[in-house]
């Protein structure tokens, strides 16, 4: 298989299979998780402005009072790499083109130099959070294979994408194919690892906000 055939495979059958597994896994896991259901809360609710699941979905993106200084690396690193990932995934023109090719939706992107800069910053932030995971006793204590694995699976698409655009290390065609392949690995992995928090984070925040909002506590 030559580079172009490899690229054509990852853009064709490989992408099809990866997206299929991703969708299958996501639908299955969402039903598996939320199908468990929960009991209705019979206690009389206390209504307080700002205390609801929806509020918590938004509010929990901001560090609670006093927490930022407890672990600034976790917060700053986390913000930078999540926002960076979102910007790269959704605002890089070729990625928008991919979404358009898949579902027909399109929107304006960012100039590639900016995406380039964001990629470098994102990679740096991911390295920082990895080092923090190694060095900070709590994180190291909590970490298992899955934590290291999912870090790598998230890091590689950004790295290969950046290398491909910069024409570094390998010919562009090969690097682009590796980039798409690494994204496919990410897609296949996502529903079955802690990366699934990309979906469940909304459910979790909503439940937390709703349970506590019932008590009138804006968490």
């Amino acid at each position, binding site marked *: 298989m030559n580079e172009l055939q490899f690229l054509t495979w990852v853009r064709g059958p490989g992408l099809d299979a990866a997206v299929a597994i991703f969708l299958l896994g996501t639908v*299955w*896991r969402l039903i*598996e*998780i*939320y*199908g*468990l*259901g*929960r*009991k209705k*809360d*019979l*206690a*009389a609710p*206390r209504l*307080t402005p700002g*205390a609801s699941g929806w509020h*918590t*979905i938004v509010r*929990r*993106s901001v*560090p*609670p*009072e*006093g*927490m930022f200084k*407890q*672990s600034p690396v*976790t917060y700053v690193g*986390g913000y930078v790499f999540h926002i960076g990932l979102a910007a790269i995934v959704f605002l890089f023109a070729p990625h928008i083109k991919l979404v358009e090719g898949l579902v027909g939706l399109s929107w304006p992107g960012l100039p590639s130099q900016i995406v380039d800069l964001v990629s470098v910053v994102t990679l740096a932030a991911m390295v920082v959070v990895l080092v923090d995971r190694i060095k*900070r*006793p*709590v*994180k*190291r*204590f*909590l*970490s298992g294979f899955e*934590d290291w694995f999912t870090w790598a699976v998230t890091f590689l698409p950004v790295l290969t994408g950046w290398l491909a655009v910069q024409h570094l290390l390998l010919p562009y065609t090969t690097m682009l194919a590796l980039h798409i392949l690494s994204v496919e690995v990410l897609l296949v992995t996502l529903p*079955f690892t*802690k990366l*699934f*928090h990309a979906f*469940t*984070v909304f*459910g*979790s*925040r*909503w*439940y*937390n*906000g709703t*349970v*506590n909002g*019932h*008590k*009138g*506590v804006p*968490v």
Partner: protein
Amino acid sequence: MSATLEKGVRVLKEVIDAPIASYFNSCVHCGLCAEACLFYTETGDPKYTPIHKLEPLRRVYEQEYTWLGRLAKAVGLAKPVTDAELHEWQELVYNSCTLCGRCSVVCPVGNDIVYMVRKLREGMSASGNAPDGIKGAANRTVTIGSPMGVKLPAVKAQMKHVEEDYGIPIPLDAEGAEYMVMLSSMEIINFPEYLGAIAKIMRQAGKTWTLCSTAFEATNAGMQIGNSDLARVIVSRIVDGAERLKVKCVISPECGHAYTALRWEGANLIGRPFTFQVKHIIEVLGEFQEQGLLKTEGMETDRLTFHDPCQLARRGGVIQQQRRLMKQIAADFVEMPDAGFMNWCCGGGGGASAIEEGEELRLEAFKKKKSQLEAVKPDRLVTACANCRIVLEEGLEHYQMDIPVIGLTETIAEHIPDSVDKEGA
């Protein structure tokens, strides 16, 4: 698998629901919950990371309620939960967790960790892995009626003393009263001034109220140990009493978990909504204050600060009332760092104070409170939870800090004028 373990796991299977499934799938091991937990911040031991305390629950969830987990279990790749493990986890689930809920409000993915600890305790208690201290308290509450073994005659004796001291009659079993006042046995034994304070406050506000002979004890060791069956037995007495006396509102005493047990868990335990309201005494005082029914004279002049009981503030949503009340009677009221919603636990909530073997750890964790107090150097410390009060006193004594701890309700009552005529009760 032993019979008790089997029972414990079965109970966990009963209580695992969609929120728990969502929470476990959301955790990214960021470790921020540890930074919110005083047992970690004061010891630096990563095993006290809140999410780690739920390890057995997580595995039961995965092995029972996910395809991949069931597959792993079927081929022998999953590590089953064992009795020895649950026993080992006792320290993490009870001794080092006060259900303070700080972890639940900092988790960036929104995991309600304390909700899960509460559920894990169901399985722990059903499998016989609850600490002896709380078991004893639960035993006494169910068999005698209160965790400290207080019976009705003791209450009646207390009532008599108060009636004599304050010259105000204490109603018992007064049908149709607006408020039914609950007590905690700490208040009956250690802080009798609470009952007198209630009498003065109610007289001034012109409200009808009563004690209940079949339900005077508000604390619920069944909830602390994490067993809904026992908690239901205890809460049912209060429901029966309130419904028998046809009261409009049941007032939870200055006790954090009693409030949670009655206000938020009660209806769910008995499986139907209450026919009466439940309010914490601080909420009631807050309403009286707003309605102009709480008139005080004079101010405390020494420096006072307020310790928010977790179950009242962060877990109960009563945060501003106590501050307004403090300002009415204290000229020099100062706030500790993190006070209010993010206040640090005294270290003895959620039943932890009943665990003898947890005392050393509890005192270690108290350093957090110590540093909070050192930041504002108060003359006296006010709170609204009898359990906090005991734990604070123990801690302060251990660290040789001379700061008296007082209850907010009786402190306010001290400022209510004694004249009966003006109030027209």
